[in-house]
């Protein structure tokens, strides 16, 4: 079960996810993300505070979104990762692809 809630915070599009991101719902997440990027979003933040599981299939979605957004000089930030999720992103080498912050407030800081 996954709830995807995109919401604008100034120049950032914050996508809050609640639940587990697995093979059964990763396609839905992929479609929404790619649609947001197609609509011109260049600064996206994924709030994973309420996510307890991101499977290997879901990792691919984050990778795809990162590739698409970098093509338009955009960025993706992740925030609120649990210890286990942080481990998963570190092990898979994905933490090098994204700016990862502890809180949403930190992710919304304009550089």
């Amino acid at each position, binding site marked *: 079960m996954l709830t995807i809630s995109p919401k604008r915070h100034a120049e950032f599009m914050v996508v809050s996810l609640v639940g*587990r991101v697995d093979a059964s719902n990763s396609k839905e997440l992929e479609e929404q993300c790619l649609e947001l990027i197609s609509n011109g979003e260049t600064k996206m933040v994924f709030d994973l505070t309420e996510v307890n599981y991101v499977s290997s299939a879901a*990792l691919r979605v984050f*990778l795809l979104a990162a590739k698409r957004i970098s093509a338009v000089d955009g960025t993706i930030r992740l925030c609120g990762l649990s210890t*286990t999720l942080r481990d998963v992103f570190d092990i898979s080498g994905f933490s090098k*692809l994204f700016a990862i912050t502890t809180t949403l407030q930190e992710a919304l800081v304009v550089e």
Partner: protein
Amino acid sequence: MRLPENIKYGTGDKPPLAVLLILALQQMSFLGVYLVISPLFARKLGLDHEQSLQLISATLIASGFGVVLQSLRLFGIGSGYFCPLQATSSTFSGLLLVKANSGLSAVFGMVAIVGLAQMVFALIFQRVRGVFTVQVAGLAVLLIGLGLGYYGIKLIFEVEVGITLEQKGFLCLLTLGTMITFNVWSSGHLRLFSAFLGLMIGFIASCYMNVIPEVEWDVFYKADLFYVPRPMNIGWSLDQSAILPAIFTGLFLALHGFGALVAAQRFNNADWKRPDLQLVKQGILAEGITNLINSFLNGLPLTSSGGAVSLAASTGCTSRYLAYWLAAIMFVLAFMPKAIVLWQILPLSVMGAALIFLASFTALSGLQVMASRLLDSRKTLTLGIGLILGVSYEPIMLLLNENSPDVLNNFLLSGVSLGVVSAVILSAVFQIKNHTRDQRSFDPVQSSMSDVVLFLEQQGARWGARPEIIGRAEYAAWQAFEVLTEYGLIDAQNDNDDKIHIKTLFNEFTFTVILSYRGSLLTLATECPSHEKMLNDEQAVMQMAGYLLYRLADKVRTRYDGNHCELHLIFND
């Protein structure tokens, strides 16, 4: 690693020179209290004054060597912590038994076997951690603390020539009160030096009250200011009858060291959760090597001092630089009989008060170590029975009327050895059937991921391990279940065989999740797929899953018997 708020100078910090020097003197004054037991033991061994001094000098040199070896952490030896070594009266019974059976020189041969035994136990502890648990080590420290406090009380109430009971009471209250006042109600340097200040004020008051007998002052005046210690002046020999008492002595010294080293780790890390067994092993190896050298110097067996570690923490400085200054003071004192004698003329009530102060920290550091993990009924019984036997040593010996069989004599050496050996035996017995098992079957089509999540969450909560380890175990099991169901690894043949059976098996240290099913084996990957491969190859997602399982679990195993597949995910706490 975050330093606790009460620690002003941590392991790697370098305090100012003057502070280091006074703190080292304070540690010396504390450890000097232990040295006082050396002449008492020397008397029991029948050593003359010269041999008694040599025994103390040798113990001081070995202790100085040991504290440096412990803090340097070179070539896999030493824990890196400030963890001074002390003699303990708990070893005396074993040493006296060997002396009675095999003569004086065999006592020091026994010290070498004690050192070797400590080194062997250091290696065993890491491998058999289910038996030699941190709680058993905590019990050893607690019993040593209680023994120390008991000894302090005995010293206070012991009849002394030239001093009334009222004077003894006054000196005791003054010494203990000074230590408590500076430790509890002062801050900064005064708190750092509380034990030293207490001893100083107790000693000055003793001089002022004229309660130190003339004969003891004579010994002090006649003692040389300097002399050269002569190693091996008493002798050294190996005797077969010393082996068993030495192994038991080595066991509880190693356990004592275990407890002290765990306490040192706790005191230096505000976020401490579990002992670093590698550092514990290195620390006990350093103790063993020290005792090997100590044996040839003709010194008393040494072990890491829980009291000194507690003193360092309670006064706010656990810097390893303290070790070098303490060692320097120990080396200098080893050459100064007059300074050694000074501890011998200290009134028993002052000494007793210091022992009570320090015993409080030792005993409580043992209790903290014992309570650092959840205590189930097995551990409660192990520690409870060990503690009761440890504190009941005297009535038990009275009951046995010293007619116990020889085999029993080897571990009825002291309350500490009786309590610790009993706890180790119980801990080993309680390894029988100490796994909790559960199993549930899931339909790969009908079952939702929520069912699997719920089952694993329940099992993880029952395991009671650290949340991050439970999180990893749950994650890996979910990932495995997802790959099996989503990527067609399950054969759907009939209603009974197409289920995924998830079995959990856990004890205090290990949590195993076994997924068994009919179908194809899940391929584990030792290398992470590239990001390009992840985007262009659908199979790379499965490779990533295999790689995540390989990395998240401490051990992963797959098995195929021609009919069923099994995936074992093993996690250590």
